[in-house]
């Protein structure tokens, strides 16, 4: 969506229905980001709701900026605040994530193009993701899960392309090391590939 999207213009003029159209379009993305950042559904729902409320409130100040990175930045900042409140650590560690089975498989709606992962592997990856430092986690989520390009990630994170590149690299490297430490989690296709 571009900055001159008519819905955005109408929402900026105070039309709630137009804003709610944008909410419906982006709520999956925003909630998914919050969930991956916070590791808890209730916390992610609160953060996502707060993000839309905050976006509605400050929409008047959005000028010449693309809506999606702006909205994601609001959500990411709220997640960061929440993590800071918890002491810079997500409430869910690897162990609790595995115990709680987070995110709930019943709520999962895999898109056809995304192959279903082995349940244990999926949980392992999600838990490893939650153990990344918040900045690396955000960069990896935006790049590898939400498939944003570097420029848009830089806009969300308000950083340079170089910083984005470095955060993505460090985040992926940590995940790789974690997965290689637990090779039994990996499906056969990846175990074969990872052999020298």
């Amino acid at each position, binding site marked *: 969506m571009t900055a001159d999207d008519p819905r955005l213009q109408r929402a900026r003029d*105070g039309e*709630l229905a137009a804003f*709610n159209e944008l*909410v*419906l379009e982006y*709520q*999956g993305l*925003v*909630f*998914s980001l919050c969930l991956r950042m916070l590791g808890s*559904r209730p916390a*992610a*729902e609160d953060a*996502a*709701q707060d993000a*839309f*409320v*905050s976006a*509605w*409130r*400050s*929409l*008047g100040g959005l000028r010449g900026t693309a809506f999606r990175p702006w909205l994601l930045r*609001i959500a990411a900042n709220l997640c960061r605040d929440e993590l800071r409140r918890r002491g810079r650590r997500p409430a869910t560690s690897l162990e609790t994530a595995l115990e709680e089975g987070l*995110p709930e498989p019943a*709520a*999962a*709606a*895999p*898109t056809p193009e*995304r*192959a*279903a*992962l082995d349940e244990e*592997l*999926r949980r392992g*990856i*999600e838990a490893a993701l939650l153990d990344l430092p918040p900045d690396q986690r955000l960069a*990896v989520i935006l790049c*590898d*899960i939400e*498939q944003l390009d*570097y420029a848009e990630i830089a806009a969300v994170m308000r950083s340079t392309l170089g910083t984005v*590149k*470095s955060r*993505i*690299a*460090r985040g*992926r*490297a940590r*995940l*790789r*090391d974690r*997965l290689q430490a637990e090779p039994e989690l*990996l499906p056969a296709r*990846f175990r074969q*590939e*990872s*052999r*020298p």
Partner: protein
Amino acid sequence: MISGLFRREHLSDADLSARIDGRLSIRRSRAVAAHLHRCPRCRQAFEGLQTAKLLLGELPRQQPARSFVLSPEAAAREARPPPASRRPAFSFAPAVALVLLVALLAADFVVLPEDGSGGSGSADSAAALQAERATPGLGAAAEAAPAAADAVAPTEARQSADADTTAGAPAASGDGASEDEAGFAAPAGPAETAKAQAEATEAKEDAADRTLLRILEGAAAVALLLSALLLIRARSGKRRGA
């Protein structure tokens, strides 16, 4: 650096990761590819990063259990602050208070001079001059006050004389001038008491004016401080909100 690619140096995760995303220059990408071809360790590191990216990409998109659309009530509760209302009032408040404070201080010094040297030409120095005319000699006001004290209210007059080393001080400081004035005013003997009385009343009014000014200055200073504090708080709150 490039020679390192073909020898012992291993590739950084930053290069390997950037290659996965196609973020290397063509030249750099070729050098990295050549290194990967001959270095099993870097190849393994590269494949590990690729695996991580692929697995993350296969994570299912999670859907929220509820919708986040805003109800009209919620939207009204979170009404946007009209750009022209709250913020400017906040941001201009310290400036307004500052201007008020400066104006009051200026009024204090210009309209009600502390000593004669600063306030010639003002209404109050004129009053002091008048008092001087009424009482011959140096320290006109100081002498006029006891005179008035005999005639009317002793305490009030003494008060005004005390307070007005301020208004009466011009006379004390301007020796030559007051001597001239003394000679000029000497014949006005019988009117002396009445004029001194008038002078005492004026001095009393001046003291009241000054007190009022001081109170207003104090209020303006407090208002300045308070509005600055509120502004700082509002800004930091806004930053937290963002």
